[in-house]
């Protein structure tokens, strides 16, 4: 019975938040620990109704610090787990996002971005947490972040986030926004047979031989769960392959390199982008999430005016597709970056362009989406 309820097969008219919840269900999520916050609460509400149908648990935590920790605990108990948040809640989760990174714990964190800083615009859109997603917890690490631009992608990329988090043993972020979270569109969900539950890889080694934090050739060790008899030790301190704390520069170098390498050496596998008319373009738009939807319109307008423009949409934001942008920069005149902030991904594009192409930003403080006319004006300027 539970298996029947896991995948909501069929064509549905869903908002992005609900589609996200269904993507998590299809992936086999069994635990949601969260704290209500606009505009992400619909995910929590949907999970509170859906999880009991498959024997899972929704638990409303006392705050976002607890939420992030609870999903890490649930992961080590053997369940796939997730949380969602927005605005200040994302800031509160940063402490233990870092714990999840260091404990190499698979789990999914969804951010339905709203306008900030601070309480900011609780009900209105923003995209200004993108650098926080990359650097928000203290210390050096790499992270995976995906940026859906439709309810369909909220489903697809949440499912994918679970898969990536398991394969790389890293908390994986779904960096959505209020518009995508609240817009309703058709979402097509395949039959359960085509949406297998995301599998966790468990060790086949015996206790005593198993190293929970081993790093075989840029990969990750399979996991165990508490109660399997391995008497594992897991610590947020810098640790060796056994998980034992080792407080010195050598151990720090080995551990942090591993956390970075396991993502960076697998960039080709992780990174996904959408390219539209990139071949032969003079100017390329770089965008993601709701802003990329506005850019589709601006592209049409620019083509009507005879401009040779294309678009490079980030489906994966982190790790950033630096090689692709670097190559494109050698072939085009300019990039126009469109995002609801005053320059976050813009600086990544500028960095990777290495001076080979000019980089323009169409800034926006959030609270609304771009006017396609503003994007068109930037494209014209860039094409000069």
């Amino acid at each position, binding site marked *: 019975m539970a298996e029947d309820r896991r995948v909501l097969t069929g064509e549905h008219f869903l908002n992005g938040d609900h589609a996200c919840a269904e993507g998590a269900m299809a992936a086999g999520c069994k635990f949601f*620990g969260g704290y209500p916050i606009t505009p992400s609460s619909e995910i929590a509400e949907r999970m509170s109704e859906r999880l009991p149908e498959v*024997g899972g648990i929704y638990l409303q*935590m006392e705050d976002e610090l607890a939420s992030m*920790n609870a999903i890490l*605990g649930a992961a080590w108990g053997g369940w796939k787990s997730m949380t969602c948040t927005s605005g200040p809640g994302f800031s509160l989760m940063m402490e233990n996002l870092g714990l999840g990174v260091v404990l190499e714990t698979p789990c999914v964190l969804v951010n339905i971005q709203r306008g900030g800083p601070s309480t900011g615009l609780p009900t209105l859109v923003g995209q200004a947490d993108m650098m926080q997603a990359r650097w928000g917890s203290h210390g050096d690490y790499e992270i995976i972040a995906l940026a859906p631009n439709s309810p369909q992608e909220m489903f697809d990329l949440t499912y994918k986030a679970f898969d990536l988090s398991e394969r790389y043993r890293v908390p994986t972020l779904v960096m959505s926004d209020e518009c995508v979270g609240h817009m309703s569109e058709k979402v097509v969900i395949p039959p359960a047979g085509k949406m297998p539950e995301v599998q966790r890889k468990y060790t086949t080694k015996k206790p005593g031989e198993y190293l929970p934090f081993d790093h075989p050739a840029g990969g990750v060790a399979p996991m165990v769960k508490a*109660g399997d008899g391995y*008497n594992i030790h897991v*610590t947020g301190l810098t640790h060796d392959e056994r998980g*034992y704390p080792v407080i010195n520069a050598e151990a720090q170098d080995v551990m942090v390199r591993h956390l970075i390498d396991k993502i960076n050496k697998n960039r080709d596998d992780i990174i996904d982008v959408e390219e539209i008319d990139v071949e032969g373009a003079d100017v390329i738009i770089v965008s993601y999430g709701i802003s990329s939807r506005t850019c589709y319109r601006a592209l049409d307008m620019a083509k009507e005016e005879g401009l040779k423009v294309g678009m490079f949409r980030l489906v994966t934001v982190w790790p950033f597709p630096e090689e692709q942008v670097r190559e494109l920069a050698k072939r085009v005149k300019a990039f126009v970056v469109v995002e609801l902030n005053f320059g976050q991904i813009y600086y990544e594009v500028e960095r990777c362009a290495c001076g080979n192409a000019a980089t323009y930003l169409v800034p926006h403080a959030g609270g609304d989406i771009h006017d396609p006319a503003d994007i068109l004006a930037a494209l014209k300027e860039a094409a000069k």
Partner: protein
Amino acid sequence: MTTPGEVTTAEPMAPEQHPMSRFLREDRMPHIWCSSCGLGTTLTCFIMAVVESGIDPKDMAVISGIGCTGRVAGYLNFDSFHTTHGRAIPFATGLALANPDLRVVVYSGDGDLVAIGGNHFIHAARRNMDILCVCVNNFTYGMTGGQAGPTTPITAKATTAPYGSYEYPFNIPYLAVASGANYVARWTALHMRRLKNSFREAINKKGFRVIEIISPCPTAFARKNRLGTGLDVLKYYHANSIIQHGADPKDADIEMGGKIIVGKFLDVDRPCYRDYVTESISRQLGGK
């Protein structure tokens, strides 16, 4: 008996294994705790209780936060998790829900559990989550050098309270009872047999269980307040502890130089969080 110079023909005795070695990560010894700190004693009591209760260590998980007591998870040879400061309880909550067969123990200090983690403490108690919560209270932040905290008695000195603390401290048993725990006891590190029995009793119960252990910190708290050595502090416990089972926890405040009320304050069997989940879901969704 041999006398110096005498040749003995007896086989040298095989080094005896420590009776608790299978419960400890001996490859992590020596531990970091100071001489005459009470933490080792509390751990001895805990292990003795696990042995007596016959629980297979593989069915237990221990979660700690940060601090001197936070190191417990690193020394116990169970599945053990050393989390961030204050967050042991929510981590344990997720773990306990994902694997209901585990006996989940949070073992941490007063600063970790009722200062930075205070919100998690009261909410886990309110939910009556299936967690045994051991709080070793030494009235100070020992690992960071003896700063004042939420349990530092009023007027007691600390490195950040050179003129004495101006704040009323938390009364942990009162907090736990008021928040909804199923079992609440307090002992000192001197009360080994009673502490062990309390551990054994609490391990076998459900819901949120709190055992507070008053423990000497010879290096920070005792030195700053001129209380003498760890042994002197234990003598103080001996002279000033009053065993009073069933005492009203609101009368169990701790003051500098005052009496310490110890014993079992509460032992009830209110249904725990999972009982409600199981009952409600099976009633409404037909046991899906």
